[in-house]
């Protein structure tokens, strides 16, 4: 992850692209769904999670791009470490990238859609973290699987979205319950627990299968 951060700090290529894309996504939605300064009620959670999914997919698509040049991925695979450690490093990098992007997304959504997202920040953070971990775990595995595939840009969302639908639904459900005038915290906790369940399943499967999918 440190190596990825070092490379990123030289160009800011990936983070700037993803943040710009996420902010543009929210802005486009705001033009469509805000009329005379009043947003359509209850759309903000959907906008947040669609933007997170789209921006995350963009990031995941580029996650192994640096390993593709000169086939550095093979160099990594040759290291005397568990291959799951390589997966974990990549996953941490993606989580950091998505975390920064989500900060921008949530702020722009709060501003454009006039939603009180920050009244219970811990619940919001819990929703975003658990949702992101589930999405990124599966995404990192698929991105690694597709790194040598020519049509990886098309295949990644096709594979990723159907599998991560439960996480996205839980994210939308939890965020919707949280931003109500009278928040239903029991429902928020239920959706967080649901996402934790999916995180455990996805993370375990990804760590378990990474070695297998990376052996040609």
């Amino acid at each position: 992850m440190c190596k990825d951060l070092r490379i990123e700090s030289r160009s800011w290529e990936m983070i700037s692209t993803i943040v710009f894309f996420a902010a543009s996504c929210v802005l486009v939605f705001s033009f469509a769904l805000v009329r005379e300064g009043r947003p359509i009620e209850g759309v903000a959670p959907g906008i947040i999670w669609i933007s997170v999914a789209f921006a995350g997919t963009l990031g995941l698509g580029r996650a192994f791009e640096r390993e593709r040049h000169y086939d550095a991925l093979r160099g990594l695979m040759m290291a005397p470490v568990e291959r799951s450690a390589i997966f974990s490093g990549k996953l941490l990098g993606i989580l950091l990238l998505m975390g920064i992007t989500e900060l921008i997304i949530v702020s722009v959504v709060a501003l454009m859609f006039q939603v009180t997202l920050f009244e219970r920040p811990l619940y919001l953070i819990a929703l975003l973290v658990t949702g992101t971990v589930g999405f990124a775990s599966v995404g990192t595995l698929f991105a690694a699987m597709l790194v040598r595939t020519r049509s990886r840009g098309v295949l990644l969302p096709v594979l990723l979205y159907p599998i991560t639908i439960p996480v996205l639904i839980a994210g939308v459900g939890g965020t919707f319950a949280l931003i109500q005038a009278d928040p239903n915290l029991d429902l928020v906790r239920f959706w967080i627990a649901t996402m934790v369940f999916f995180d455990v399943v996805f993370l375990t499967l990804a760590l378990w299968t990474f070695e297998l999918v990376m052996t040609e």
Partner: protein
Amino acid sequence: MQSSHPEVFDFDQLTILDVSFHYGRRRALNRVSLTLHTGELVGLLGPNGSGKSTLLGLLATLIEPSKGSVLYGHKSASEAGTVLRSQIGFLSHDLQLYPELTAQENLDFFAKLYGLPDSAGCIALALERAGLKERAADLVQSLSRGMRQRLALERALLHGPRLILLDEPFTGLDEYSSSALASRLKTLKRDGRIVLLATHDLDALDGLIDRAIILREGKMGELKDNIGSLKQRYRQEFRQGDK
């Protein structure tokens, strides 16, 4: 240049037993058997698509054989575990470097990955051997093809592996660098390494290798030790094979 891994695994012999490998329906290796010993420098020859890179990838534990087995000493890759990879150095067609990192940062990254105890000393020595001491702070993408090739070779040898697998190591090297590589290979051989080297540059191999293995459509044969240059013997072998 030794690894700091507490668990040490070493071997004095590499045995390939009746190994076959298929890419889908296409057979890349067909019942290949071979034994390599420490202190041996073996050339792996054959036309394009004959299975040389597949065999090297297989020995590097990146590919699992469809049939047969590869033994490092008396253990297979799965029995030896991850520690086995600390004894394998692999230079493939692609250089396995990060173009956006400097030469020094590339070596530093791999030294950490291999857990080398004296990484600073290893890196300094590797840069000197690659002739890149003055260019250590330059991004790899700004280096010439030959410089990148030399750096990639040192990256593959950084952890002092027992088994060294080199795929076209002479690519992009000038005459001086080629002869430096040849003497480096001789030193590795004297140090008791097992070196398997795939190349089409037969002139560079002549007089350097102990024996030559030929792969042809995935089948293995040994180049006979007749009179004549390696190139002549190679051509003769293929003429006989065509008859």
